[in-house]
């Protein structure tokens, strides 16, 4: 716990983040560029799906990110509720909009892939519906965190929602096995070897690593912003106190 609390100090966190941020940003740009190059030029078309398989290189990594960010957010919320870790809620609130954006990308690219392959933009089946629910969980978390006059109450309420909503994460993961769905089952993260050829697996993993680095870089920016926003709120409150105190003092 003591090693964890060393990072809890916002000033120290900001110092570390300023050193890490440029590396994350440039590495993200590099890996995504390499991933895109391989996705379009070196990876083959699929023997069943033809060229549309190239949508996979943006669809699957954003789906992984949608789940990964939510998991991270729920863990932060738990740390915030249980240990009152000073950065936990800040982290979760900074992460939520990023996760929501990855979920939107996953849904839209999935729809654009579904139309030519399944013949439909949307189907209310287990996988698609549970990912849509994930999107609404993100939106609910963001809305609830901002819905209270007292931000501390808002972040607690939102954290509870995020934790309750976490049941959705395994449902999404296993939906393709538990129910009949149009969506294909997992071909990378599964028992045994990935059932996907290296020429497709490498660009896919590059994109996934790139998206993760992008997420970390953007998260650091947003955490800094959120810490400043909190400082601003505190400064304005003390301003009001001073303004309210001086007439009372003279009168």
């Amino acid at each position, binding site marked *: 716990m003591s090693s964890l609390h060393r990072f809890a100090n916002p000033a120290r966190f900001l110092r570390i983040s300023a050193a890490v941020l440029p590396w994350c940003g440039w590495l993200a740009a590099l890996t995504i560029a390499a991933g895109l190059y391989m996705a379009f030029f070196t990876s083959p078309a699929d023997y069943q799906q*033809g060229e549309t398989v190239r949508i996979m290189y943006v669809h699957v990594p954003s789906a992984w990110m949608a789940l990964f960010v939510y998991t991270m957010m729920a863990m932060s919320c738990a740390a915030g509720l249980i240990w009152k870790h000073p950065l936990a809620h800040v982290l979760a609130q900074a992460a939520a*909009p990023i996760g929501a954006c990855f979920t939107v990308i996953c849904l839209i*690219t999935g729809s654009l892939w579904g139309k030519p392959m399944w013949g439909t933009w949307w189907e209310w089946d287990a996988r698609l519906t549970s990912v849509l629910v994930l999107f609404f969980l993100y939106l609910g978390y963001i809305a609830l965190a901002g819905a209270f006059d007292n931000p501390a109450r808002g972040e607690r309420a939102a954290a509870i929602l995020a934790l309750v909503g976490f049941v959705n994460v395994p449902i999404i993961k296993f939906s393709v096995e538990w129910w009949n769905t149009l969506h294909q089952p997992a071909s990378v993260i599964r028992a045994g070897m990935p059932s996907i050829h290296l020429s497709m697996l490498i660009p896919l993993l590059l994109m996934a690593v790139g998206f993760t680095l*992008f997420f970390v870089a953007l998260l650091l920016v947003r955490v800094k912003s959120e810490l*400043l926003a909190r400082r601003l709120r505190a400064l304005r409150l003390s301003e009001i106190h001073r303004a309210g105190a001086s007439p009372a003092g003279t009168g």
Partner: protein
Amino acid sequence: MAALSEFLSMGGHAGFIWPAYGVALVVLFVLVAVSLRTLRANEIAVREIEATRPKRRRRAPEAERDDA
């Protein structure tokens, strides 16, 4: 030129593949732009308020030291 237009046509699925990448690009770009703008606005606002109020006392100000 023919190779380029063949590449862009994506085996007849250009209308699905390019929008997929376009949407991802636009969504992530907007998110980054909004995040950076909010950061800058917050930085400026904090600096403005801190400039108007007297400096907080340092832990060991030179002027107040007796042994200096």
